[in-house]
Every structure is written in C-alpha cells, then in structure tokens.
C-alpha cells in the first residue's frame, strides 16, 4: 500500500505562488479561492535575518483531527493515506475546520468543506507547475521515490509537530540557514 507525501525544498522555494495559481486553475476554483497558500516567514537567528517561503496546504495527516471530529464520516482516510471528503455526506458543519491545526480547510461556494486532495494522488498541479522545482510528490514507502530519497538524505521538518498529527507534507530545511 502506497503512502503519498509531498516534500517542499525551502532552499528552492521562491514564494512566487505559482502553486496557488496552478491549484486554482486545475481545480477550477476561480480567482478568489485556493486550496494552497504561501506564507512568508521572517525569522531572526542571532544577528542574521532569514526569510523562508512555505507553500502550505492540507497535510494529509496520518492522525487527522478533521477525520476524528467529522460527525458524519464525510472526512475519511482514502487510498494511500489521502485524507478525503465525501461531498454528499458533508453538512458544512465546520467541525473539521475547527479541528484542523493548519487551517487547511474552508467552505466552498457549494457549501461543503473543501481542501487540497493532492490532486487525487496523480502528480499534483502545484508540483507540476513549480518553476523552481522545489516541490516533490510520491510514495513515502517506495525506496525508488524521490520523496523517500530526499527525506533520507536531507534534514526535514513537518508543520506544527507538537500537534501530533503526523503530517505528510515535509519541508526540507535550508542547509545554509542551518550552518548560520
């Protein structure tokens, strides 16, 4: 059984938000909605200032609070560890939005909860359209996959690890910043 994951290289991400636009176009969300966003995080380490761009989306957590708190079972684990929404069972009660520590969800114009679905497990539009090739997608359990190789060879972090949700989106940290 595959376990899909996304890996984003903070060294290469330019913060251009092409991932956001690609998501809007591929999923026909219109110009005002998106299942992804870019956060610019400026931080200080000693005398140095660092700027990192984080392309954020649903983390398809292995222990997803949205699934646990959904009262109808509309939010569920699908094939290969994807967290999916069964739209016909969604009431728009927003329990999943309240439960998600990453604010990855929102209510669609049609009234159901919506979020990134990793483009159903095919190569996601954000990954395919990243101009700096900072994003990777693949099977975490396949030794041949790029994501597995990168996570073995590079230092990585997941968002809000203290939440205990075991996200499947990983950020490769900047080696230059680590040395600094």
């Amino acid at each position: 059984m595959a376990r899909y994951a996304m890996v984003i290289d903070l060294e290469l991400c330019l913060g251009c938000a092409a991932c956001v636009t690609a998501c809007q176009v591929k999923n026909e969300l219109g110009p005002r909605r998106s299942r992804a966003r870019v956060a610019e995080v400026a931080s200080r380490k000693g005398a140095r200032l660092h700027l990192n761009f984080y392309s954020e989306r649903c983390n398809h957590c292995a222990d997803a609070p949205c699934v646990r708190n959904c009262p109808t079972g509309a939010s569920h684990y699908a094939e290969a560890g994807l967290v999916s929404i069964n739209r016909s069972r969604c009431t728009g009660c927003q329990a999943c939005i309240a439960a998600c520590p990453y604010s990855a969800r929102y209510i669609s114009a049609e009234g159901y909860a919506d979020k990134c679905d990793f483009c159903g497990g095919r190569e996601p539009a954000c990954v395919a359209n990243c101009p700096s090739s900072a994003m990777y997608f693949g099977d975490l359990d396949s030794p041949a996959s790029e994501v597995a190789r990168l996570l073995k060879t590079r230092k990585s972090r997941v968002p809000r690890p203290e939440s205990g949700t075991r996200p499947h989106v990983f950020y490769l940290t900047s080696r230059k910043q680590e040395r600094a």
Partner: protein
Amino acid sequence: MEVTFLQSPEGMGSAAFWGWPIAVDLFCGGLAGGLLAIEGTRRALGKPGSVRPPAIAFLLLCIAGLSLFFDVSRKIGLWAFYAAFVPSSPMSWGAWILLALFPASFLFLGGILRKNERLIRAAGAASAILGLGAAMYTGFLMSVLQARPAWHTPLLVPVFIGSAIATALALLAVMEGGYGVAFRVALVSETLFLVAYLMTHPAAPASLWYAAAFGGLLPALLPRRIGIVLVLGGAVALRFLILAASQLPPLNLQ
C-alpha cells in the same frame, strides 16, 4: 522572533468558522438542557411542578435546533448526521443526543399536559439524562479541539455545565419562585470554574473576566431579581466571548 505574511486568496486559512447562530445554539441548548436536567429529575422523583419549565425548555430546544440548521452551510446534507455514529466526534454525540432529546422532552411536556404520571416519570427521567448530556456536550466539543488554544482545556466542560445549571435555576426562580440557595451554589460553582479557567489557561480570553464578574460574582451578591437578569446576560456573553476567542487561526502555521 518570527513575522509571517501571507500570499493567499480566500479559501485556505482565511475564514472564521462558527458564527452567531452557534452562540445562540450554545446558550439555548445549554439552558434547555439545564432546565430539563433539573425539572426532569424533580418530576421523575414525584415532586410537583408546573407546565412552564418543560414548555420553555422545549421552545428553547427548537430555537437551538433552528440555529444549528441555520448555521450549517449544506442543509441538504443534514441527513448524514443520522446515517452514521462517529464515537470520536463530540458533534456526532451531540447530534444523536439532540435527536433523542426532542421526543423525550415532547413526551415529558405531553405527560404533564395530560396529567399522565407514568409518562411524566419515564419521560422526565429520560429528559433529565439527555438534558445533562446536551448541557455537557458543547463543552466537550470545544475542549477536545487542540487546534483552538482558547478552548483546549477540560475546564470548559464544568464551566458550560455550571452555566447551564445556573441559568436554568435563574429561570426557574423567575417562573416558580424559590431555588434561592441552589441558584447561588450553582452560580458560585460556575464562577469558580470560570476563574480557574481564566487563571490557569494562558490562551483564555481576558474579556471573560467581565463575564465572571457581571454574570457570576455580582449576581451572587446583588438582590435576586437583578442577579437573575445579570446571570442570563452573563451566560449569553460567555458563549459569544468563548466562541469568538478561537475563531481565527494564528498566521504562522509552521
């Protein structure tokens, strides 16, 4: 130190979620639950009483149900609440409790109107248990949400139960008279839990100190009629303030 800016259209991470109808539901559902817990227990034990408390509780339940209906954005999918029971979801528990509480409280009211003592006792006992469940569940619903720092504490459960019982006793004191000691005990208990929440929970909204002072402490000291009005007002404010406290996520989700 970190500073975060977002490049984001509407959608992901942009929205506050539960709006004012949920605060109305929390207040009316809690008050109805408290009324039914108290009056159901009394009538199940064979104590006399009037038709007003269960009638008002049923009316409040209807308002709570309508508020929930108004808040969900996909009303056509409401059937899904009752096509599954998800034990890990407090909202699923709440949906099933409400479903059972409506007929139980209706039968309780019907029993009183028809003076059917067996029905009053049976439906009263069921309403009391389910009413307490309704008063408790919103506290559970919010306290399990780790993503919402202001709500993530088990102290919210006794705060909500205390508030439900105190407001119910306040309303009973208006309708039926009496309940002076019980009202003050419930009020002091609720206030103590609220103060404990405010003092021990770093993310607790400071504005709740006003609710604790004007809806808890002052009513226990002031003449009863003024106190009752303050308790009911304080309970409404408590729901709105707690709900507003954790609506927007932090900018930095990393």
